């Protein structure tokens, strides 16, 4: 067992940049530079469940790939358990597990059990250990009984759980999960979240990316919001919510609403943003504001003659804060 250098943070990232260089065109080839990470810093404590949130193309997967040694950064440093992810790949690889969302990355023609045996061999886990661990993982992940079926016959949720079992085979200290609940039904996704939370409670450091704010809110100890390769906010889910002010949300439905009406709502002192989204048969108007109760009382006056319904006021969620942050930093 190689000893680790002393480390305070399970994951430590300093000024990490990744610029992808791709070529475009078949005959006149031009180089295109795409800045995926524009210098990010992260420090994640051992045992922490950390969530990286951000829109499509923000750099989440890129970050995970760098931290799992699959991708070289352009500059900056990243350490996992004190080991440099560029130079000490062997030490990092032995001690981490990683799961990328989606159905790829399994041998469909093999059974779930054989998939796990194969990967256990890749990690050179002694047979007695791997046998016991595979059994445990199949049990915990609810795959016991189906482990000898071929993976091609598994549902998406089963494949996802098999992925997680694979990621846990080497009993990693740090687990990277890139959108682990993508494509799962609500119950399956919740079960998986409970499981992930449980892993963190048992001392594993978990680095997770997700698009689902409620997911991050529900299980993460700490989150960071990344946008266009930059971290735009970081903290506990509740501190992120506070970042965008002591805001509440007023929501209601209308059939139509004019631009003037929206502007009138925006004109209120306490209102910070008004967002209109289309939902099935109606438009949903979401107002972010400091005093939801007061805005509620004013709605009738401001929207004279408009039939609005289902008015509700609530506390801001992480998603509200996220929408605000992502909008702001553009």
């Amino acid at each position: 067992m190689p000893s680790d250098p002393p480390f305070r943070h399970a994951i430590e990232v300093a000024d990490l940049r990744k610029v992808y260089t791709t070529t475009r065109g078949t005959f006149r080839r031009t180089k295109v530079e795409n800045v995926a990470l524009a210098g990010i810093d992260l420090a994640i404590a051992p045992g922490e469940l950390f969530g990286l949130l951000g829109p499509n193309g923000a750099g989440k997967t890129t970050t995970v790939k760098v931290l799992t040694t699959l991708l070289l950064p352009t500059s900056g440093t990243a350490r996992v358990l004190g080991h440099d992810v560029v130079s000490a790949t062997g030490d990092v690889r032995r001690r981490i597990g990683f799961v990328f969302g989606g159905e790829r990355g399994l041998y469909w023609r093999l059974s779930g059990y054989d998939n796990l045996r194969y990967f256990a061999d890749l990690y050179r886990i002694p047979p007695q250990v791997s046998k016991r661990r595979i059994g445990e993982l199949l049990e915990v992940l609810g795959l016991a009984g189906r482990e000898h079926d071929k993976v091609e016959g598994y549902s998406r949720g089963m494949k996802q759980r098999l992925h997680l079992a694979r990621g846990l085979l080497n009993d990693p200290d740090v687990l990277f999960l890139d959108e682990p609940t993508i494509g799962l039904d609500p119950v399956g996704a919740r079960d998986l979240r409970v499981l992930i939370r449980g892993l963190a409670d048992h001392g594993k450091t978990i680095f997770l990316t997700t698009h689902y704010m409620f997911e991050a809110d529900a299980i993460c100890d700490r989150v960071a919001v990344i946008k266009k390769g930059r971290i735009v906010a970081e903290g506990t889910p509740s501190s992120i919510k506070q970042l965008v002010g002591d805001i509440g949300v007023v929501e209601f439905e209308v059939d139509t609403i004019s631009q003037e009406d929206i502007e009138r709502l925006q004109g209120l002192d306490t209102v910070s943003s008004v967002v209109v989204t289309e939902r099935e048969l109606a438009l949903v108007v979401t107002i972010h504001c400091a005093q939801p109760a007061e805005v509620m009382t004013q709605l009738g006056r401001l929207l004279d003659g408009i039939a609005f319904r289902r008015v509700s006021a609530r506390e801001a969620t992480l998603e509200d804060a996220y929408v605000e942050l992502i909008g702001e930093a553009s």
Partner: protein
Amino acid sequence: MTQSLAAFARSTWLQYVALFQWATPLGYFAYKVVLPVTQIVFFVQLGVFATGPGNALYFALGNSLQLTANSGIFGVIATVSNERQYGTLPLLLGSPANRLLTFMSRSFVNVLDGIVSVVFGLVVTAILYGLDLRTANLPLLGLCIVVISITTAGLGLLFGSLGLVMRDSIIVANVVYYGLLILCGINFPVSRLPDALQVVAYSLPLTRGVMAAREAVAGAAFGQVAGLLAGELLVGAVYAGLGYALFRLLEGWARRGGLQEAY
């Protein structure tokens, strides 16, 4: 030691089943029985038609030996390059597994498979065309079969690596397969090729091995073909080495941000 050997055997077998398309009983039958018999019969008929009945055995023997390319080329290319299709390459590259061992082991079962194919082809040849092995140097013939199974797999490893970046590796496999069929003295002696193509032929696996095997069938002693076999092994090793080098090159490229689709 026995433990790691067992693990090695298991994972090579699992890789073979996982990554090789024809690893179903029916597929295997079509591939290992129907196709070889068809190929042998086709080329014998063609050859007999073109050169007369006296040469039937030459064609039958050549095509039986070339069956090793079934596993060595198609099998190995599929086993290496299918990783791209399954999206499992990052898992391999992100693991602490020994790269050389993992890479080389992809050819292992295919080598055994190649040996079985050739033996099957020889049985077919014996039954259909009266191949008489009573005067043959059987141990030497066996050795030749093992050697060509290894060397064709070496060439397969190179094209398997290529397949990690190319979408149509199966087309490449076909070209290589038929290239071997034409150039390696399967259906006519290499000496009948134009000079330039002879150079190509001698830089391919099979050529020397098939020559040696023909000699062995005629009863030659080991010493008479040792040079051919050594050359054959060298050629195979060079291709396998190039394949591994290419694999590592691609690994580095992938880490710098290329090989996007395979990820």
